[in-house]
């Protein structure tokens, strides 16, 4: 993910400073501890990674044994394939549209809970619990809420005099229904990360501020938020990388049809459809690789940005 930060091990704090020295860790046979993991890693990550790269230069089919070397054909085709760019655009739109509320609302939730309001257990439970639900449960519940005729959401809208919304049928709305569902489902994770960060702020800082007569808002903007800057940076990085991988909920919510007019088809679904529904594994591999490179680029750019903002 963010290679840039990993590459700076000097900043990693150690729980207690270990004494370093080759004599102390001279244990032999260490390779045997590492080998089992490396074997599984090589077999199920590294090998498919190479195999997939190779496959992207063939016209490999799901249902045919032999395949033909096609050179860069798949890649050439891909850049001219409007559907690749359309689904990529949808994926990016989803990423932006979901990351903002998933970060902002999670922060608000964490700040509210951290005020020490009574019922800590309850608030944490309510905000975090949906994260623990399997995607199938989440989508089935929301299909029911979104339903046109008997859905709670439209009933609520008409109840307050607003027109009904075609949550699952309007091409302009479909993707935002996925955003809504996703925010509800996964906000708990970001909420917990913020909560952990808030709890790590030394109480002395607030006490000092209080002596200076700083009120709640000034404490928030003067101490809390600046101290959360780096956490926010990382929550954003994690969320962007997670949102880019949209597939499960969009696929299930629209029963594999990509949403009204195809308006909610993420690129991973296009890869799945290309590879498994249309049997075109070689081409699907090529799209996977372009997407992979894009993910790494986005991660690097974000790492660069967050480092600059820290400097």
């Amino acid at each position, binding site marked *: 993910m963010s290679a840039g930060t990993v590459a700076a091990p000097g900043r990693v704090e150690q729980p207690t400073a270990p004494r370093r020295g080759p004599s102390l860790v001279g244990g032999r046979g260490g390779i045997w501890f590492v080998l089992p993991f490396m074997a599984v890693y090589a077999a199920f990550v590294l090998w498919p990674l190479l195999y997939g790269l190779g496959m992207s230069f063939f016209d490999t*089919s799901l*249902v045919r044994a032999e395949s033909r070397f096609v050179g860069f054909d798949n890649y050439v085709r891909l850049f001219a394939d409007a559907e690749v760019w359309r689904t990529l655009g949808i994926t990016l739109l989803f990423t932006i549209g979901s990351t903002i509320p998933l970060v902002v609302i999670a922060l608000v939730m964490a700040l509210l809970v951290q005020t020490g309001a009574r019922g800590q257990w309850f608030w944490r439970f309510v905000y975090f619990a949906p994260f623990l639900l399997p995607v199938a449960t989440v989508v089935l519940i929301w299909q029911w809420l979104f339903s046109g005729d008997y859905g709670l959401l439209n009933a609520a809208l008409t109840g307050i005099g607003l027109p009904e919304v075609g949550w699952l049928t309007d091409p302009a709305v479909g993707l935002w229904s996925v955003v809504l569902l996703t925010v509800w489902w996964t906000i708990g994770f970001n909420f917990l990360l913020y909560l952990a960060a808030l709890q790590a702020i030394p109480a002395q800082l607030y006490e000092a501020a209080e002596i200076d007569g700083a009120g709640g808002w000034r404490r928030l903007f003067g101490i809390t938020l600046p101290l959360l800057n780096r956490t926010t940076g990382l929550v954003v990085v994690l969320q962007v990388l997670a949102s880019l991988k949209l597939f499960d909920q969009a696929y299930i919510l629209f*029963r*594999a049809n990509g949403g009204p*007019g*195809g308006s909610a088809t993420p690129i991973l679904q296009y890869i799945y459809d290309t590879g498994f529904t249309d049997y075109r594994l070689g081409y699907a591999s090529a799209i996977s690789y372009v997407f992979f490179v894009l993910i790494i680029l986005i991660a690097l750019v974000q790492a660069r940005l967050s480092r600059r903002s820290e400097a």
Partner: protein
Amino acid sequence: MTTSYRLSRRTLLRATAAAGGAALLSSCARGSGEAVDLAYWNFFGGSDGKLMVELVNRFRAEAPNVRVIDTTLMWGPPYYTKLAMACAGGRAPDLATMHGSRLSTFGRDLLDEWDLDELAARGVSLDEFPQPVLDRVLVDGRLMALPLDTHPLVLYYNTDICEKAGLLAPDGTLAPIHGAEQMLDAGRRAAEVTGAIGIALGSLHEAHIWMPFWSAYRQLGGQMRLPDGGPAEVDRDAMVGAMTFLRDLCDGTICSPSLDGQSSPAAFASQQAGFLFVGPWEVTSARTAGIPFSMTQFPALFGDTPYVRADSHSFVLPAQAQVDPAARSAAYDMAVSMLRNSLAWAAGGGHIPALSAVADSPEYLAEKPVSNYREAAQVVEFDPEAYFSGSGSTLMARAGQSLQGVTGRSLTPEQGADDLIGWLDDQLTLGNPL
């Protein structure tokens, strides 16, 4: 490249079939006492799912030694993707339901052919099926799918509304409709009676919009050939004509452009529409609603022959890495049993039975309104043949986008036709993955 492999694969299949045949005999000799597991997949998740369970249960009663494990998967692309993956993985079910139009998606290697001798031994022969359907399920003379039914697009009409709109003949049935103008006009008059819309069509559902499109396109004389490598051989004028009809239909009065697969039959069931364009299976929802309605063959909107888009639910034998002869034999038994019992399927689900013994039976002819449109089986038009075509296919989904562009008026019929043709050309240049 492909030939060598196919040949070897085919020889292999023949060898397996031969071995299977021998084993079949021995399994008969073994006697019927031993229990057999039979995995059966289908995609009937709607109200016809209940009817399918009935058919399965009847077979269970007939063959107590067969343990049928039936599974209903999500209709459309998920079902066919899973089935193809199961075949590719070698662990496919013993028997599966498939649309006749999807056979080309499964190529030659993913399905086993039906052995005509085995069928004859169970009293079923090819001349018992309607010719247009048979043409589709026979591939190079080999029977790849055993048809259970034909299900064409049909015309539902609300007798009350049509009477008020003056659309009924003296005998109380719908006065014959000739031509697109009459259909549109009938829709307009029905809309005046309902105060809502005249015709319900789920234009947001790719299958619902595809059915009238393909019917009109074929009635206009449109052909479609989709050769590997492209370009698509398409009649652009017929396509523009069919799309123009759909655009005129979805003008917001005759038909709303924003109905989906559920709201369209619901609009008909709640008498918000005088007509409904959809396959025969919605007879259940109309009956449940208790409205006065009838059904008839889809009219000739263009030309004289009422060609109509149809498909056939049929049974296939998915290729397996290892065929258990006892299960294979049970699969034949079960498929034939369901064919014989298809009266319940037809009466309840509206499908036209494929087996002539059932389709010609007085019991079926007495079933109204579902036997009204039985003649449609002779003028059915299947989807074009291509590995990405057929019910719930990539073509249908993509065509749905073009068609919705036209009905939603973001594309003109000309733009819609070019959009679809352009996609077809692109798709064909990709080459056939089968």
